[in-house]
């Protein structure tokens, strides 16, 4: 009896102590679930890599490892002007969109965060609502308009709609970043002899750099992956970006599916994104939550 009464508080104490030291130990089954999810997510990518290393009759095999691994597909896509031009166009479109989006986005965000603008909330809400538009709803009218005014099948014709869909998120992220920068800093700069614009780019911009990096990365990824406008608004290699040009890959014969080269091209265009996301993972998450919390 006595032993029991002594043991009880000790057990209670141990339980308490565990809570205080932080997270409980991860149970074994959680690891299995996590492994399952990772496998589920990454398998398509692995399969793409797998196919890209196969050629000829191997393509139809279901082996987990390519029986005769070869880099032939990679060699051939880099010889294909369809792909190399696409890569060039993608780079131009994505980088230009990113640059313009951050520049104009930061101006707009600064205005919304700091200057006296009536009905700020509604302006921001309107801007954000643009990003909820399904792209397909404007693809057809845009095609008609672009053909009429000569922007069809040009890089500018792709940059404009990309920018329109990238700006809302950029403005949203940067507005919340700018809001967090103490007003006193700008006022100090103004008193120190800076113009509004100097105060903005010498004091505010350097301090909002993490937010700008986040916005830039997200914009770049979206523009790089963009398919709908790329396929609708282009007709030749002159303006076609990679995601669209991959669809135009042809096999060596009419009856052969160009599976190997498509996979190889997909692997190649994924690499810059994977590197970027891994490098800036923290930034992206921080930027997204900053936007989410501050709203």
């Amino acid at each position: 009896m006595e032993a029991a009464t002594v043991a009880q508080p000790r057990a209670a104490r141990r339980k308490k102590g565990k809570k205080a030291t932080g997270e409980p130990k991860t149970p074994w089954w959680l690891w299995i679930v996590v492994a399952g999810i990772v496998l589920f997510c990454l398998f398509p990518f692995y399969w793409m890599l797998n196919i890209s290393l196969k050629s000829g009759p191997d393509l139809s095999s279901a082996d987990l490892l390519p029986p005769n691994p070869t880099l032939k597909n990679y060699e051939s896509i880099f010889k294909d002007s369809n792909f190399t031009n696409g890569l060039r166009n993608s780079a131009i479109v994505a980088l230009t969109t990113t640059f313009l989006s951050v520049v104009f986005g930061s101006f707009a965000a600064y205005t919304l965060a700091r200057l006296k603008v009536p009905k700020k909330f509604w302006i921001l809400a309107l801007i954000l609502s643009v990003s909820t538009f399904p792209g397909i709803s404007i693809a057809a009218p845009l095609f008609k308009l672009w053909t009429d005014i000569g922007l069809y099948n040009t890089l500018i014709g792709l940059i404009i709609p990309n920018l329109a869909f990238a700006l809302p998120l950029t403005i949203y992220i940067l507005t919340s970043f700018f809001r967090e920068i103490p007003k006193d800093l700008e006022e100090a700069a103004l008193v120190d002899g800076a113009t509004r614009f100097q105060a903005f780019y010498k004091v505010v911009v350097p301090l909002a750099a993490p937010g700008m990096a986040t916005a830039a990365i997200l914009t770049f990824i979206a523009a790089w992956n963009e398919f709908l406008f790329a396929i609708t608004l282009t007709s030749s290699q002159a303006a076609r970006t990679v995601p669209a040009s991959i669809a135009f890959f042809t096999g060596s014969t009419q009856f052969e599916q160009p599976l190997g080269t498509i996979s190889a091209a997909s692997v190649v265009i994924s690499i810059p994104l994977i590197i970027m996301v891994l490098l800036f993972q923290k930034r992206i998450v921080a930027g997204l939550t900053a936007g989410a919390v501050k709203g």
Partner: protein
Amino acid sequence: MAEIQLDGIWKRYPDGFEAVKNMDLTINDGEFMILVGPSGCGKSTALRMIAGLEDITEGDLLIGGERVNDLEPRDRDIAMVFQNYALYPHMSVRDNMGFALKLAKVPNSEINSKVEEAAKILDLTQHLERKPANLSGGQRQRVAMGRAIVRDPKSFLMDEPLSNLDAKLRVQMRTEVARIQSRLNVTTVYVTHDQTEALTLGDRVAVMRAGIIQQVDHPKVLYDDPLNLFVAGFIGSPSMNFLPGRLEGETIRLPFGDVPIPHRLRSKLKASGGAQDIIAGMRPEHFEDAAIEGDVPGLLKFRAKVAVVESMGSELYAYFDVETKVGDSAELAELAKDAGLEDLPTHGSGDQTQVVARLDAASKAAAGEEIDLVLETEEIKLFDPGTGKSLTAG
């Protein structure tokens, strides 16, 4: 170097709130002017209007004789020290201090020599390459000062620059600020809510309340001859004691005894004549333990039951309650609320008013015991309970 002149300055916000009302103030060339008052009295708004960070609704602001109402802050040639220092976090101390000069396109060699000279004055030389985040509070404060002085501006504006420092450092920096100001001899406007800073630093002090300047004068005058109840209660620590009394002919009736009208005040009070209610103000140091002071003419002796004793080492603060039967003064109650001064008596509910006396450390005063106290009647100040205006100053 320049004179700053505020001429009927108003600040009215879009919602109709008036932060500064018809402010007239001239700050002479090289003068150290303090704006002091409780929070929300408009002192910071006034400073920000001088800086150009806040629009002036009405009135004229002149710096060095030139009307600057519509000039941008950068064109006014002023330097400002902010309450939270507002150092640029991404720049080193050197770049922080040189930022204004760099914007003004001063050659690099000159920037460096000026920054280094300022750093020497402020004892920051070994910290020049560090970032503000790695500095202590006192060092950051000095960088903020340094940023102001390298520019050699027409005037310094300081917005509660010491309020973020701990008590000891604040006293230290206070002397530092005074030293730098007198050395550079630049017109300075300094905003604070701390009356001690105001009294110790300023050449002149402007006491503000609810957007209106109550009194502008040398610290000594503010202390000895406050123009109204607010200034009297705000300046001095512990605050002046206020007790209701009555003026009858040649005597002042106070809750603890009758006092003949002091000589000094007699001529000033002649005009009012007859009997009237008054509020009497007595500074804590004008009380003394009767056992120490002895029986000297001109002193009013009375017995009081001490409620609390605070020993400061060099002196004692003895708190005691006084029965007051005269009706409450709305002015006093409002003042107490407005200024957040707990020391001001509250007349509302009870008929007791707390009085604090500053006694010699040798006094035997103890909590809960009765003691004989004397009051220097010459030093009593009299106020009109209706208007709060002093009957004796001026």
